[in-house]
């Protein structure tokens, strides 16, 4: 029985954050697990911040992760991961895609983007395990930049802490994409898995 496992996925509109949580949720249900989650749609898709929550377990009721109770944070974008730092605890796992998406307000001179080192330092203060990944490069290697989110999912599974079976998530990915795109996505998943396993 799984009591409570909390996953937070953060990024920017257009990075496929919602798809990741759909794949996780569907797979968890296939594995007979209870799932709760939530996200902010609407305004967020227009290039704004996006967070999606997936909570698995029999002792989960609410749609939000309480502060300090995130087990795994998947950061599709460094500053967006940092925005959610208060959900972390010493035992959380953070997987970070290092590619920054600079908001237009920075070009306009209305705000500043922090250095990657500073982001990593802050995240490491909150959590004991921060793994960084050049997910875009791995996605290119798999055959399409569009699979960056699937690379990150693979990385998440390499921690072997997830209550979802790796075969199940791969089945779900296989079924989600048209026949032509499925192998590229499976490859992306495997590349993310390997890269993160080595880093861990």
């Amino acid at each position, binding site marked *: 029985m799984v009591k409570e496992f909390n996953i937070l996925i953060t990024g920017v*509109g257009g990075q496929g954050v919602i798809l990741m949580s759909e794949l996780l949720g569907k797979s968890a249900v296939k594995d007979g697990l209870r799932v*709760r*989650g939530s996200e902010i749609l609407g305004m967020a898709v227009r290039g704004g911040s996006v967070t999606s929550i997936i909570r698995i377990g029999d002792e989960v009721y*609410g749609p939000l992760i309480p502060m300090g109770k995130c087990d795994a944070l998947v950061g599709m974008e460094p500053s967006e991961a940092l925005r959610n730092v208060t959900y972390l605890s010493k035992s959380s796992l953070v997987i970070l895609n290092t590619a920054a998406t600079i*908001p237009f307000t*920075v070009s*306009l001179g209305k705000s500043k983007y*922090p250095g990657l080192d500073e982001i990593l330092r802050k995240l490491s203060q909150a959590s004991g395990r921060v793994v960084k990944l050049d997910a875009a490069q791995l996605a290119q290697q798999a055959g399409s930049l569009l699979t960056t989110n699937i690379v990150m999912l693979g990385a998440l599974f390499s921690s072997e802490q997830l209550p979802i079976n790796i075969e199940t998530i791969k089945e779900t990915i296989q079924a989600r994409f048209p026949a032509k795109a499925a192998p590229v996505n499976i490859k992306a998943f495997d590349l993310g898995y390997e890269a993160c396993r080595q880093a861990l």
Partner: protein
Amino acid sequence: MKELTISCDAPGERLFVLGNEAIARGAIEAGVQVAAAYPGTPSSEILETLAGVAKELGMYVEWSTNEKVAFEVALAASICGVRAMASMKHVGVNVAHDPLMTASYIGAKGGLVLVSADDPWAWSSQNEQDNRYIAEQGYIPILEPSSVQEAKDMMADAFRLSEEFRHLFMVRSVTRIGHARSDIVLGEISKERRKGYFKKDASWLVYTPAEARRNRPLMLERFERIRKAANTLVYNQLRLADRAKLGIIACGLSYSYVLEAIKWLGIEDQVSILKIGTPHPLPKELVKRLLNSVEEILVVEELEPFVELHVKAIAGGANIPVKIHGKDLLPVIGELSTRKVTEAIARLTDTKPPVDFAKLGRLEKETAPLLPWRPPALCPGCPHRASFYAIKAAARRIARDYDKDVEPIYPGDIGCYTLAYNPPQEAVDTCICMGGSFGIANGLAHVVDAPIIAHLGDSTFFHAGIPPLINAVYNKANITMVILDNSATAMTGFQPHPGTGYTATGDETVQLKPEDIARACGVKFIEVVDPFDLKKATETIEKAIRFPGPAVIVSRRLCTMIEQREKRKRKEEVIPYYIDQDKCNIKCDACVRLLGCPAIIKQDTKTIIDSSLCTACSICAQICPYKAITQEQR
């Protein structure tokens, strides 16, 4: 094996769904035959889901022009004995308010359900209004789910209850129900299909003063029966703990936070809990039993102290000496969370949460200044960006003729284009409600001496833009009304509307044009422009502003999201633009400063275009004073 979907009659099976899909599923299980709505976050996916299965299941599903019409469509079906629903966001209920307040006098023949999707913290809304008060005002009983599963169950049951009590019911959702995801256990789908029959009967359908007075006591009687029944409804549950000092009353979604909080604090056995699924009417007997069994009460609910005040009234009326807490310990603003609820309960039980919230709060404060500001932005290639550039260029020219200090005023509206209140557009001076841009412009015209250029989208025009347009003609308001026609209800997910030429279920229909409507309404200056032809668009808008009297501009260009999707389907290549660094004057910055396009990025000492984001709209090339921006050669 066929994959399980939202329309499968597979009782007992589990399906992973969005909350709004669960609400739709509940209606499907109840055998709903008519569903109508106007899109609005966080409600849109309810009707989208129903529209997707309407033909397969034999339902009538429509996107109505606005929420008032949607509710009237559902009400008519109910009057004819057919199960019907209308769904809308919280502020949409304001638009439907007029028929709603008399609907409870009528009651219901076929089950009638209104879904109100409230939005605490106003994630995608203009306010945080709590529609439990609207329901109270109209004697409409509320079912308020605590989870996605319960949203499905309540929705299915609401139609049955509506018929049992011959009364309209409201299902009140919130963002964290409608946009939550969960596995749900499916129920059986009713196959019953009724034929609508309109029985003429003025005594309950024609609301003259006499009939209103005759029907009001009948309505109150129906409501009293519902009030009594609330005590035995499965959605209200009282769990008394032995020797508990604290009793918690948790309304709707708050119940889930309470369950987590007491588990976190390790006091599951030490508090009594009343779960409220019907905040209106409250299960009075259950409330009294709880009040009589404890020393202190904490009412946990989002937004207003609706349940709290009623509980205080019950305690006062029955002379129960118990201390009642609520909004003294919990915020009236925004969403609740496990943290907020845990802190409130910890204070009353003298317990300590296992997480140091103060420390996390400090971390949050330390981090905040490091974070970049990332507001949602108009998409690369969005036609609105071009329209705003043209509107502002034209308005500035005219303002100069007035007086050097005169600033043009831009009343704005609800849609993607609201994002233009951010820099660099800063072209939204008011945003209040659907259609409010034209209405506010009408008023401004009679009190200020400045160019007034109001704008709204095509879907918003059909929704609430026509009466203020007629008003401008009738009352001679000298304003310019720009309809930003991207042939989509884009912000909520590209739902069709009367200007698109097809219906919710994909059938072709008459395509209405805003310019034809404006002409019929007596507007004397009407021009249609293509915002991607900046020069011509600017000149035409300038003429419109100079025209003495109400003028209409239709700025027409398909939403870039749809355009790009169609291009991909046609396998048409997008050839992006690039900045010739030899010609670019880095000090100029016009493209960055004036457009704020996410595809134009400043990198160290140069400005570049991200070719993966560029949609080749050409606007930056049109405004570059150095002609440094050109299309790549392929």
